[in-house]
């Protein structure tokens, strides 16, 4: 049975870019532990020599001709953005002060 600490849950939340309130962390820690305990059942199946399946269809690469096509109008795309400026997405600062 896995046992997942609140600290580990907080670390996962940081990795997943999820700002969680303290009570959410507490609640999730208990639930994740319970769910992981249940899904750990997959480790009971002896499957050393079994190849993994990542996808229902045995497709590899799908190619097409590299032909220019009309793309979506910039204004339609930027119109759905939270903020836009000078024909571009406006985003908060990406680099820190020292960057």
């Amino acid at each position: 049975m896995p046992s997942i600490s609140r600290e580990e849950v907080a670390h996962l939340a940081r990795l997943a870019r999820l700002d969680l309130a303290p009570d959410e962390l507490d609640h999730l820690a208990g639930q994740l532990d319970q769910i992981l305990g249940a899904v750990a059942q997959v480790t009971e199946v002896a499957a050393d020599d079994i190849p993994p399946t990542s996808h229902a269809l045995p497709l590899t690469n799908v190619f097409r001709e590299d032909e220019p096509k009309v793309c979506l109008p910039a204004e339609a795309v930027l119109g759905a953005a939270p903020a836009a400026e000078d024909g571009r997405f406006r985003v908060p600062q990406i680099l820190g002060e020292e960057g």
Partner: protein
Amino acid sequence: MNSLTRAKASELAAAIKQGEVSAVEVAQAHLDRIAEVDGTAEAGVHAFLHVDAESALAAAAVVDQRRAEGDELGPLAGVPLALKDVIVTADMPTTAGSKILEGWRPPYDATITTRMREAGIVILGKTNLDEFAMGSSTENSAFGTTRNPWDLTRIPGGSGGGSAAALAAFEAPLAIGTDTGGSIRQPAAVTGTVGIKPTYGGVSRYGLIACASSLDQAGPCARTVLDAALLHTVIAGHDPLDSTSIAQPVPDVVGAARRGAEGDLTGLRVGVVKELGGEGYQAGVEARFNDAVALLSKLGAEVVEVSCPHFTYGLAAYYLILPSEVSSNLARFDAMRYGLRVGDDGSRSAEEVMSLTRGAGFGAEAKRRIMLGTYALSSGYYDAYYGQAQKVRTLIARDFEAAFAQVDVLVSPTTPTTAFPIGEKVDDPLAMYMNDLCTIPSNLAGNASASFPVGLADEDGLPVGLHVMAPVLADDRLYLVGAAVESAYAAQWGGTLLEQAPALEGIH
């Protein structure tokens, strides 16, 4: 013909073609019905998140005009449809049931949206779902729960509860669902409607907001098997815009539905999956399932028991594979290019804004699954969890292969229970996940599956579904079996199961 809102899609299309009724009249009748029973998040069925009367009537008027000009109309031209709000539409908002996409207007139409418009299908609006199609009850929607038209205190299934409830409430004769672990079939079962999950890759995913890309599949929902087949034919087929789309002809599902309705299944080999029944299954569900199996024999099918030993591990493998893909797919909701942005006050970095937005914009189940996936994919756990789950996926596909070497289709109940009360499982994720026990193996293996109504459970009078599973690209077998069962029960009941549903009171 019955009243316009009770008619089959095929009957409506024929009547429009003959000029007995206009497409605008049909659309208006359904808009009136929605106004009468759909209500709001607080009361009524609440199947729809968005109804667009103006664009529906305009689309219907185009069909009427084409008819007036002598154009040959397709088999569903002028028929109204309810579209699950996870399929993008350029003329209507698309939310995926999430606050993070509230009010978003996609800049393009999904391939299936385009195909339905070209077929003259009239899109009435967008239906409710669990956030990003993750759930079995619609209780994970950010915009309130849909209520089951059979009993408004109960769940309509999920994630596509809005689409199934719209059919069962006679708000639309056709709907679109998407199925990642059972989201078309489980709502169909608990609302007494028909829901088909086509073979993975059979219907384009272009413009379907991704939950788990290797499992997601859009498909038709309807009140009758033939109507579902007609819709299947409109939306299926190769799409160069989806790299996982199958470049092969669409199975003749309409022909199969017509043949099946003749009620002769002689020569068909049916396997009852031993592992999908017994403990944890409601008595009334098992009773109706057993009746349906007896009916299949009576119609000429040869019924045997089949073992699929790894199906038992399907749920566990699914709840590793699915969250892993979800954690990756939902990374695109980063507050930069579309949707919600929280905390951008000039002092915070992009990373802080991203984190605040996702914390505020995602609901509890989305967060749970993102966290589970992040864990399962993290170094140190990858091999034990995600890697092992992928091997189990191979074993489940092999179980299907071995079974389909002996039989033409497999059957089980669609869900272990009938519709449960709203609120009963909302904070008990493991209990909620059990709803998908029978439906998940087909998503993992990618084969075609469906749910058809087979009666009401004795203890609660609520609908039960028969789950039929067919091999990859043998979708037509689902329709053959479904139509045979449907016509035999129609003779027995004097109509469809939905005609036994209690009348809904108007919301006024």
